[in-house]
C-alpha cells in the first residue's frame, strides 16, 4: 500500500512537470501532425529524460525498484510511434540495466518492449486513420496496463532466482500497474486538454483572421498604397495587440504604426536586412526576441526586440511584406507565426480580389483621361477657324459644320454608356470626319466598306474615333500629297475585324507615342474579352498604316 501511495505521489510530481511542459513552446511540437527528424530528436530527449527520472524517483523494494519509468516510454510510443517508443524504451532500459540489481536485465528488456508496444498502439490507430485516439486517456490507460502486466511476466520469466522474482512481483505488480496506468492516462488527458486549448486558441485566431480579412477588404479597394497600407496597419495593430505593425512594398515602408513610429517613417526605403531577405527569398522570417533579438537598423533606442516578417504574394510575385513587432521584455507568443502568415495570405487574397475592382476603377479614370484626350485643342480651334472661313463664302455650309461639331462634342461630353454599337461609333467618326474633310480638303478622302450586318454589334465607346484621328494626326497630315483613309468592318473567321488604314505609312510606334486614347482602346477590349483580342497597329513605311481591331464574334458584352 505504501508503494502505491508513494508511486502516486511521484505521479503527482510528474503531472506538475507535464503541466509546466505543456506551457512551454516545445509543447507546440505535439500539435503538429507530421514530425520532422529534429522534432523526433527533441521528443526522444524529452521522453527519455522523463523515463530516466521515473527510475530515479522509484522506490527501492527488495533489490528492485518500483517506478514510473514506463510513463515516459509509453507516452513517447503513443505520440511518436514505434521507433520513438522503442528508442525511449531502450534508452531508459539500458539506463536501468546499469543501475543493477537482480531485475536489471528484465526491467531493461521490459521497458524497451513497453515502449515498442505503445508505439504499435500508435501505429494501429494511425493505420485506422484515427490518429487522434492516441491522445485518448482510456487508450493510454489500457496500453500502460497491458504493458505493465507484460513487464511483470517478463520479470518472472527472466529474473533469477525465480522465488525472489515472484515475491517482488507480488509486492509491486498492483501498485505499479495501477499507478502507471493512471499516471499515463492523466498526463495524456492533460496533454489532450492543452491541445484542445490550443485548438481553441487557433479557432479564436481563425475568427480573428476572418475579422481582420473583412476589415481589410474595405481598405484595399484601390490596391496597396500608402493610404490603404496605413489603414491596414492600424487594423492589424488593433486586432493583434502586437507592439507595432509595418507594411512595406518591395522598396519602401508604406506604413508603420505603434511603438517606434517616431523613427520608422513611411515613405523611407526599407532599412532592415531581414525584410530585404524576406522579399528576396520569399520567406517568412521570425526573430522571436528570446533566442535572437531584432536590432532596429535605425535607432539604438528602439524598444522593439522581436519581429515577424511575412512576405505578401500576388500570384508568384512578392509585392511587399507585413511586419509584426514585439516589444522588449514582452512575450511575442500571443501572435504566432501561423497567424502572421495567415494574415499575409489574407491580405494577398484581398489584394487579388480587389484587383478586379481596381482595374475597373482604373478604366473609369482612364476613360476620363480619354475624354480629355478627345477634346484635342488643335482639332477644336482649327475646326472653328475653318468654320469662320467657310462662313464668309457659304454660311449654310458653316451651319452644317457647326452642327457636326456640336454632335461630336455632345457625344464626348455625354459619355454615359461604356459600350456603343458599331453604328453609333461610325456616326461619331462621321461627325468628326465631316469637319476634317472640309479642313483638309483634297488631302483627305474617306472610303468605307462596312458589313451592315455588324452595325448592331457592341464595342467599347470611343474605339473608332481615336483611331481615325490617329490616322490623320500621324498619317495624312504628314503627307504632302493626297491622303486616303479606309474604314472596313467585316467578319474574319467568325471574329469581327475593324480596320482603319491610311495611305501615309508614317506611323512610328516609338516616335509617335500613341495617344492615351489609342492605348486605352486596346486595354479596354482586352479587359472585356481577353488577351486574344484587341488592337494592333502595323505600319508599312511610306505605304500604309493599318490599325486592326479584333473582336470575338459577338463583339463585347
Amino acid at each position, binding site marked *: 500500500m505504501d508503494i502505491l501511495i508513494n508511486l502516486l505521489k511521484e505521479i503527482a510530481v510528474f503531472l506538475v512537470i507535464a503541466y509546466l511542459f505543456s506551457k512551454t513552446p516545445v509543447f507546440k511540437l505535439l500539435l503538429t501532425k507530421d514530425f520532422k527528424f529534429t522534432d523526433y530528436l527533441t521528443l526522444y530527449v524529452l521522453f527519455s529524460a522523463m523515463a530516466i527520472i521515473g527510475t530515479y524517483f522509484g522506490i527501492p523494494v527488495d533489490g528492485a525498484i518500483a517506478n514510473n519509468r514506463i510513463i515516459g516510454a509509453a507516452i513517447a510510443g503513443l505520440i511518436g510511434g514505434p521507433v520513438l517508443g522503442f528508442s525511449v524504451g531502450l534508452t531508459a532500459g539500458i539506463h536501468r540495466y546499469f543501475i543493477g540489481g537482480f531485475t536489471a536485465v528484465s526491467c531493461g528488456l521490459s521497458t524497451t518492449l513497453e515502449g515498442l508496444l505503445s508505439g504499435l498502439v500508435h501505429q494501429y490507430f494511425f493505420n485506422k486513420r484515427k490518429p487522434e485516439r492516441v491522445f485518448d486517456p482510456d487508450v493510454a490507460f489500457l496500453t500502460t496496463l497491458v504493458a505493465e502486466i507484460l513487464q511483470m511476466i517478463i520479470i518472472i520469466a527472466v529474473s533469477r532466482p525465480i522465488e525472489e522474482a515472484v515475491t517482488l512481483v507480488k509486492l509491486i505488480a498492483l501498485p505499479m500497474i495501477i499507478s502507471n496506468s493512471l499516471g499515463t492516462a492523466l498526463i495524456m488527458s492533460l496533454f489532450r486538454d492543452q491541445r484542445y486549448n490550443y485548438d481553441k486558441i487557433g479557432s479564436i485566431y481563425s475568427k480573428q483572421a476572418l475579422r481582420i480579412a473583412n476589415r481589410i477588404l474595405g481598405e484595399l479597394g484601390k490596391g496597396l498604397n500608402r493610404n490603404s497600407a496605413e489603414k491596414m496597419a492600424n487594423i492589424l495593430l488593433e486586432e493583434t495587440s502586437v507592439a507595432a505593425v509595418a507594411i512595406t512594398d518591395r522598396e519602401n515602408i508604406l506604413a508603420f504604426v505603434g511603438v517606434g513610429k517616431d523613427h520608422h517613417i513611411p515613405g523611407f526605403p526599407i532599412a532592415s536586412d531581414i525584410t530585404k531577405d524576406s522579399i528576396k527569398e520569399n520567406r517568412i522570417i521570425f526573430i522571436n526576441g528570446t533566442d535572437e533579438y531584432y536590432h532596429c537598423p535605425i535607432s539604438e533606442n528602439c524598444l522593439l526586440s522581436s519581429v515577424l516578417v511575412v512576405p505578401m504574394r500576388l500570384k508568384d510575385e512578392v509585392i511587399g511584406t507585413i511586419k509584426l513587432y514585439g516589444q522588449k521584455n514582452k512575450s511575442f507568443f500571443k501572435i504566432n507565426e501561423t497567424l502572421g502568415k495567415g494574415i499575409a495570405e489574407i491580405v494577398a487574397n484581398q489584394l487579388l480580389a480587389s484587383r478586379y475592382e481596381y482595374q475597373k476603377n482604373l478604366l473609369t479614370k482612364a476613360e476620363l483621361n480619354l475624354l480629355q484626350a478627345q477634346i484635342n485643342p488643335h482639332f477644336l480651334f482649327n475646326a472653328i*477657324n*475653318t468654320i469662320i*472661313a467657310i462662313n464668309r463664302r457659304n454660311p449654310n455650309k458653316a451651319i452644317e459644320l457647326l452642327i457636326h461639331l456640336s454632335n461630336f462634342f455632345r457625344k464626348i461630353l455625354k459619355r454615359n454608356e461604356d459600350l456603343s454599337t458599331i453604328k453609333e461609333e461610325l456616326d461619331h467618326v462621321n461627325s468628326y470626319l465631316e469637319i476634317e474633310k472640309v479642313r483638309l480638303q483634297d*488631302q483627305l478622302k474617306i472610303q468605307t466598306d462596312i458589313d451592315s450586318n455588324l452595325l448592331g454589334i457592341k464595342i467599347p465607346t470611343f474605339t473608332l474615333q481615336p483611331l481615325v484621328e490617329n490616322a490623320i494626326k500621324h498619317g495624312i497630315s504628314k503627307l504632302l500629297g493626297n491622303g486616303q483613309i479606309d474604314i472596313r468592318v467585316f467578319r474574319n473567321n467568325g471574329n469581327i475585324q475593324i480596320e482603319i488604314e491610311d495611305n501615309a505609312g508614317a506611323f512610328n510606334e516609338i516616335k509617335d507615342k500613341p495617344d492615351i486614347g489609342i492605348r486605352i482602346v486596346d486595354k479596354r477590349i482586352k479587359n472585356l474579352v481577353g488577351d486574344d483580342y484587341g488592337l494592333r497597329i502595323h505600319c508599312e513605311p511610306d505605304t500604309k498604316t493599318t490599325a486592326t481591331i479584333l473582336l470575338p464574334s459577338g463583339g463585347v458584352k
Partner: protein
Amino acid sequence: MNLNAVIIDDEFNAREEMEYLLNQTGSINVLKKCSNALEGIKAINSLHPDVIFLDIQLPAINGFDMLSMIEESVLPRVVFVTAYDEFALEAFENDAIDYLLKPVDKIRLEKTIEKVNNSIQQNTVQKLNLPQITKIPSVGTNKVKLIDVDCIEYVHSDETGVFMVCIDKKYFTEITLKVLESKTKLFRCHKQYLINPDKIDEILFDDNSAGKIKTISQHLIPISRHYLKELKEELGI
C-alpha cells in the same frame, strides 16, 4: 507703304481666312499663299516678301525647319500662326516678331502688323535661333523625298541647281549651299562643293597646294586653295 506678305498654311480655309483678314487691314499685299514648306521656301526665295504668316504644323517639314532652310539674307519677318499655343513658347525663344492664334482676331492682327512695321523701320535684326537641318527635301516629279544628311557624301551646285550626292543617287534640292553649309555638318571645300566630313576616305594633295577629296564611294571632290586651311583645321590635320 504696304507690306508684301506670303501666307504658309496647309489648310485651304485657313489660308483663305488669313488672306481675307490681311486684305481687310488695307496695309498688306498678299503675294502668295503656300500649302507647305517647300512652296514656302520657293516663294520666299523668289518673291522676297517683307513678312510671312507661318503655320507651325506643316506636313513633312514644319515651320521651324522651313525657316532653317532659308538664307538669312532673304529671311523675311516671321509671324507664327497656330491653332493652339503649345508652340508659342518655342516661337518666342526663336524670337519671332509675333505669333497669332487661330481663329485670328482682327484687332490682334493689326497690332501684329504694327510690330512688323516697327521692326522693318528700325531695321532690328531678327534673332532666329533655328534648329540644324537633319533632313533635306528633294522635290521629284510627283513626290518629295527627305534626304537624311548622314547619307549625303557631298553636295555640289552648277548652273542647273544644287545636287546632293548619296552612295548611289543624286538628288536635286532648292536649298542653297550657303544654307546647307551653315545649318548642317556639311563642310565647304570648294565654291561649288560641300563635303560630309564623315564620308571622307582620302585627301589627296597636289603641287599647287590644293587637292582632292576621295569619298568612301570613290567620288573625287575638288578642294580649292581658298578653303584648304579651314578644311585642315576642321579635320584636325
